[in-house]
């Protein structure tokens, strides 16, 4: 069954196991890295055989969830010991969580992991796992610096994961059970958020510690970030900033006679809470983007050109333990045929369209090949006060509103639910949509990680 090329490649290594065939047995001691037999790559690349026992070991460890509050408390009283503790937490937590996702991927249908994009992600993850698991215990600040370099490099390499996954999902449409794919996407994206949060928080704390302005125990003002966590995200400010960005983009891509709807904010305008700013901006950005585009489209077909389009109304409600943001538009509601796929990553009949759009996102196509140098500048942490835009989210956030990728809502929901919040949509067919984003204000709820135990229990 194997091609000659493969057989020849294999002969050049010392093997203890028989070569993998599609339906043949494999020895328990070895598991192959999936090698896609597609034309886009050399057949015998990535033929490394990795011992599965190591992965089993890490898979059996539980992930230790954290909360925003813990992230903050850690940062408030930063000492050398705490920094080293944080380094060791990251050092073991990352490979544990990656191991779980690797096992998930190994259990996916063969045809899925064979897809070129999914396969790339699989290899990225395996290499990351290998790298992190081999790092020895951190004992000094120098050790920590080396760890940070490894973390940085990995973060950069993995920027392409979201678009790759999205493209892979769309390409696998119809080949596998849609529900299974959705569940996989949810799990892997949640985990990805968690790892990046942990990693970037540590990088940020290291930078704080190393900065010339730092003295342990100094009081931070409220407009500060503790690492990635913005102590006091003011909902109104975030919404206004997102609204400005979205409106500017909409203005730039629409002909001058097309009117852009106003975005009005009412309610408890002083509401604030600790959050990771880029997450909040992503969610609100996606919701406003959907609303603005819907209103513009509807106004062109149903509205009169002399009148302005109906405004989008944002309401902020502050309760003791949580805040709710409602975004109400009159964009005509969600068409019936889209409703079943609203929260799913697999879009059914709409997949082909979304796939084409994914290829059109600026720089997303670029990220599919080598990562360009300009990304490095974005990850630089020159300014302590304002964390840099997360590149992976940045390329998504700055795309034009009419480029529908089919990921905005499900991905926003992953982010919203990550910190024990929620995202709900209600559509009035023919009229408009109300979106409700609920955020836990105290930041003391643990992140919602998926452990193997809870997954097996499903």
């Amino acid at each position, binding site marked *: 069954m194997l091609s000659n090329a493969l057989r020849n490649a294999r002969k050049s290594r010392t093997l203890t196991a028989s070569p993998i065939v599609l339906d043949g047995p494999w020895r328990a001691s070895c598991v192959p890295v999936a090698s896609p037999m597609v034309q886009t790559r050399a057949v015998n690349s990535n033929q490394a055989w990795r011992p599965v026992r190591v992965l089993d070991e890490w898979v059996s460890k539980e992930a230790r969830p954290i909360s925003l509050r813990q992230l903050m408390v850690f940062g408030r009283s930063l000492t050398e010991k705490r920094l080293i503790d944080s380094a060791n937490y990251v050092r073991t937590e990352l490979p544990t969580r990656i191991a779980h996702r690797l096992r998930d991927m190994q259990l996916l249908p063969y045809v899925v992991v064979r897809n070129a994009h999914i396969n790339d992600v699989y290899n990225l993850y395996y290499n990351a796992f290998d790298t992190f698991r081999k790092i020895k215990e951190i004992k000094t600040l120098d050790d920590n610096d080396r760890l940070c370099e490894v973390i940085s490099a990995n973060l950069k390499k993995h920027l392409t994961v979201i678009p790759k996954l999205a493209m892979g999902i769309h390409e696998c449409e119809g080949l596998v059970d849609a529900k299974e794919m959705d569940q996989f996407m949810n799990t892997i994206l949640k985990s990805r958020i968690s790892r990046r949060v942990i990693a970037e928080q540590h990088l940020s704390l290291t930078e704080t510690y190393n900065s010339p302005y730092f003295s342990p125990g100094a009081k931070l003002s409220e407009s500060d970030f503790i690492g990635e966590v913005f102590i006091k995200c003011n909902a109104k400010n975030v919404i206004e900033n997102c609204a400005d960005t979205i409106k500017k983009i909409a203005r730039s891509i629409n002909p001058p006679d097309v009117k852009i709807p106003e975005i009005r904010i009412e*309610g*408890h305008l002083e509401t604030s809470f600790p959050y990771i700013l880029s997450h909040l901006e992503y969610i609100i950005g996606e919701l406003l983007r959907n609303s603005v585009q819907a209103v513009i489209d509807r106004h062109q077909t149903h509205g009169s050109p002399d009148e302005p389009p109906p405004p989008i109304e944002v*309401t902020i*409600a*502050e*309760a003791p*333990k*949580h805040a*709710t943001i*409602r975004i109400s538009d009159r964009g*005509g*509601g969600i068409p*019936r045929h889209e409703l079943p796929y609203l929260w799913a990553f697999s879009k059914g009949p709409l997949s082909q369209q979304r796939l084409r759009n994914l290829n059109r996102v600026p720089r997303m196509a670029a990220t599919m090949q080598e990562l360009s140098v300009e990304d490095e500048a974005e990850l630089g942490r020159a300014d302590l006060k304002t964390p840099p835009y997360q590149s992976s989210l940045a390329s998504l956030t700055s795309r034009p509103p009419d480029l529908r990728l089919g990921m905005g809502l499900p991905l926003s929901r992953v982010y919203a639910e990550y910190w024990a919040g929620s995202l*709900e949509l*209600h*559509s*009035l*067919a*023919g*009229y*408009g949509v*109300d979106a*409700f984003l609920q955020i836990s204000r105290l930041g003391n709820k643990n992140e919602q990680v998926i452990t193997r135990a809870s997954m097996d229990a499903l």
Partner: protein
Amino acid sequence: MNRLASFGRLRHVPRTLRSTRTVSCRALSTSSTAASGYNVTDSDIATLAKRHQHQLSLADLVKHGRPPLSEDSLLSSANFTLGLLPIRLARRIQALRNLPYIVVTNPNISRIYSTYVHSLSILLPYWHAAAEGHPIATLDEEIKFTNTLAELVATHTDTIPILARGFLECRRYISPPEVTRFLDEHLRARIGTRLIAEQHIALHFSSQPHFDPEASPTPCPEHPSFVGVIDTALRPATVVESCAGFVADICELRYGTRPLLHVNGEPDTTFASIPMHLEYILTELLKNAFRATIENKSQEPVVVTIAPEPPLPVTDIPSIKSPGSDRGQFRSDAIRPLDDNAPGVTIRIRDRGGGISPDLVHNIWSYSFTTFSEDDEFPGSDNGGGGGNDGLNAISGASAGISSIAGLGYGLPLSRAYAEYFGGGIDVQSLYRWGTDVYLRLKGIGKIDP
């Protein structure tokens, strides 16, 4: 002006809102069915309960034609009804019998159980006759049958509050989830059963042989847009306004203030639906919105948005010919079976009543007895109980045609049962400390030709 008394004159208000009517038998033969002594056997119940329970659709209700029905169509409707009801009753009896012994022997539950058995007993003679090759074939038989139906509808009017009281008394012996499960199924089945019976009664009184809508013991509107209890040209905005007026009146009497109502969206939308269901639902939802607004001391109006679903691009949507003013013509060709994709209407009720606390949000769909503790007074009891003096709770009592809830907190789950019965639904979204949005989705029956 005593609004309650004048209610009967409003077009879309069911007569039974005034009070629980006794059966008016002016046009019906006065002899009740001869089978009140008929013995219902276990085998009867078991055999009937095994049979397939027909999933009622709006199309079933209109398939016999638009009133006034001819004699043939009337008999067809009678036999159709006869074919469905005993099975439904048997299943309800079966479900009741499977509750724990100590529950079914409770006086209230037992009373309901007996009522169901009695109802089955008066229908069984017709059922057996039909099984032996003698369906309802003459106008006289049809009159007797319809009389029986009227008795059935009347005796079961108070099922819900009696059941509710019974379950409350039994709360030590049966868990809330079990009761919820039972009630969810029972109330939904009850909606269908009553609808089948009431529809035939209405068709009877608006048929050619018996035309006398005034005499009907259940709603039998005369307007040509009606097909029995269905209004093919129902304007939801009108129902909203009349229910809101009613609720606001009570608020004024009870609290001294009257929240404002604002209707937007497309108020002139019309679609085919059952007015008495919509009235019940809207009254409940507006009651919640108005009360919250008052208790939160808000001056903001309750805003109701009416959003018709856009017409579908599908070309073979069934059409219902618009009502003609000539009632004398028989128009059975006008109705075709229901299309599952019929566009409907969404009604959003938005208030500034402060929202629902997150601790209580999951409770809103449960039947209120689940939130009772051991020491609580029974609500709606003769002692006045918790909320029994509240004028707004009394509104539920006034809508006795559907059920007199009398402050037992069944309003939301029952409203949802009505909405879901024909494929719609209700969603509640709270912004705690600000207000609540309620989304009522209703399915239509099909496109109405202009």
